[in-house]
């Protein structure tokens, strides 16, 4: 027989009290695991949205004279003809070390053209790439397929009294309007989109680019690292991460994280208090038993070890149960609380070991004073019969 057998047998004897002891810690651990899991779900959702909704890196020519604003960013290349970005820069972006994180590269050239007696901005794009970036676009008509087909922004269509299927004259060259964009509330409403090569030709800027938008998966690597590597490849360009995208939601998530930590600490403190009061009561109930242990030669450290072992066993059980309950609850109430769909059941080794370690540690810390109290008991007082 070892000391652990004494601890295990005592826990078996006190099933009811041990149940409440485990329950106290389990509630704490369940809360922590649930909140961590929900926070992760929200975090993953935001990362996914960052990847899905538009570019998160903007590449523009280096220029002191900024003349055009797009997507909340200013860039050069229109008014002062700073044509430092070229078609040949596109493959360089695909050569960075973390290129597997790059989803879409969408080059653009912006020029001002005359049509129907008005000056209108014309943007040359690769439609395949642009449509990947702008999944929110709704097109009346079709996506341009031919070189002489364009997509017209909602406001431009209204001002020019044009709709899908009509023909426009751009710098004297006839082009067909393949589709008209639904109102987006952005600069896209005021633009005509054409094939990049065609726009380079009509604006007489062969191989030139005004900017490049890049969508990168920021879930697996820091966006700053992608920016750094692209900057290294394109020293003549200014590479910027668009952090305002979903920034508000990220801030809300940050607030939720802080709130979660606060709630977790409070619940864990309550759980620890339950363990402490239970252990203290248990020690007082076991005065006689502790007196016997001391009388037959147990050292104080042996008594402390028995109490700690009991606390550790309780903590480990509460850790496992708390983890499983937390995982289950987060899958059930997470989607309700956050509006994020529950993902697949992922067993995160760090979280499971963290939960068990934390629970065991709290069990021991909460039992430290009761254990010390037990070890200091006077055997003659404990053994009243003597």
């Amino acid at each position, binding site marked *: 027989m070892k000391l652990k057998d004494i601890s295990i047998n005592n826990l078996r004897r006190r099933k009811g009290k041990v149940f409440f002891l485990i329950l106290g810690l389990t509630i704490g651990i369940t809360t922590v695991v649930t909140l961590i899991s929900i926070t992760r779900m929200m975090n993953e959702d935001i990362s996914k949205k960052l990847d899905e909704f538009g570019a998160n890196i903007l590449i523009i020519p280096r220029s002191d004279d900024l003349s055009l604003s797009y997507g909340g960013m200013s860039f050069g290349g229109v008014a002062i003809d700073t044509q430092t970005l070229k078609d040949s820069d596109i493959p360089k972006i695909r050569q960075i070390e973390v290129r597997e994180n790059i989803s879409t590269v969408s080059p653009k050239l912006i020029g001002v053209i005359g049509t129907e007696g008005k000056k209108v901005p014309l943007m040359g794009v690769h439609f395949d790439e642009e449509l990947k970036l702008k999944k929110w676009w709704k097109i009346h008509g079709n996506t341009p397929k031919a070189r002489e087909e364009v997509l017209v922004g909602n406001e431009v269509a209204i001002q020019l009294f044009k709709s899908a299927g009509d023909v426009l004259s751009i710098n004297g060259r006839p082009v067909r309007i393949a589709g008209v964009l639904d109102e987006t509330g952005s600069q896209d409403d005021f633009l005509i989109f054409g094939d990049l090569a065609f726009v380079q030709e009509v604006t007489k800027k062969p191989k030139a680019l005004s900017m490049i938008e890049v969508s990168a998966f920021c879930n697996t690597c820091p966006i700053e690292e992608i920016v750094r590597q692209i900057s290294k490849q394109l020293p003549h360009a200014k590479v910027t991460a668009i952090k305002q995208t979903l920034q508000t939601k990220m801030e809300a998530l940050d607030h939720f994280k802080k709130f979660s930590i606060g709630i977790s600490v409070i619940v864990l403190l309550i759980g620890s208090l339950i363990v402490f009061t239970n252990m203290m009561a248990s020690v007082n109930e076991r005065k006689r038993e502790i007196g016997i242990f*001391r009388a037959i*030669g*147990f*050292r104080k450290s042996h008594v402390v070890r028995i109490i700690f072992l009991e606390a550790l066993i309780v903590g480990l059980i509460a850790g496992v149960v708390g983890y499983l309950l937390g995982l289950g609850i987060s899958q059930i109430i997470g989607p309700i609380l956050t509006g994020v769909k529950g993902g697949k059941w992922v067993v995160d080794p760090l979280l499971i070991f963290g939960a068990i370690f934390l629970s065991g540690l709290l069990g021991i810390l909460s039992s430290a004073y009761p254990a010390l109290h037990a070890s200091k008991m006077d055997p003659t007082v404990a*053994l009243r019969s003597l």
Partner: protein
Amino acid sequence: MSLIEIRELRKSYESGEERVLALADVDLHIEQGEFVSVMGPSGSGKSTLLTIVGGLNHPSHGDVVVDDISIYELPLEKLADFRREYLGFIFQSFQLISYLTVIENVMLPLSITGRSNHEQTKMAKEILERVGLREKARRLPDQLSGGEQERVAIARALVNSPPILLADEPTGNLDSKTSREVMELFRTLNEEGQTIVMVTHNPENMSFSTRGIFLRDGRLDENGSRS
């Protein structure tokens, strides 16, 4: 040199504003192989004397030397080691651990000796055989009669082969027949060389011992003592 030497032992307690003298200048020598019974009326200091000899109760004055070790000069943890190596306690009301089986109760003093489970089990079974409880090794204490529980307590006290057995009213909760059986066992153990110090109320029990001493108001009553 005696196995146990008690020198000028005094023990007093605070009881409210009053100071109660439980033991007063007790001098006592107990030789190896003696079976000493300590008798006296309630409150005479018998149990106090036993707890002091057992290293559980610090005296107010005087010294207890066991096997040339002045036990109250030992640090507390060493005193615990001393109790484990030198003493076997038999308490009033048996004092078995209710959630441990008979054999686990007997193995309790062995659980902190570093012996293997196999060795502990072997030693516990041998001593249970000795007290006639081998067949009931897996039972819980409350499934045994009073006499059987007393024998489990004796087995627990002896499993470590301690040089000294201290017993506090070992037959206090037993009927006369079972008391006699227990006392016969004590006599047999003593005949095999076991040193026993027993506190008892029962004058009949004294006849089993090799020496009887009387305590009255915390003092040894030389007139009542018997050799």
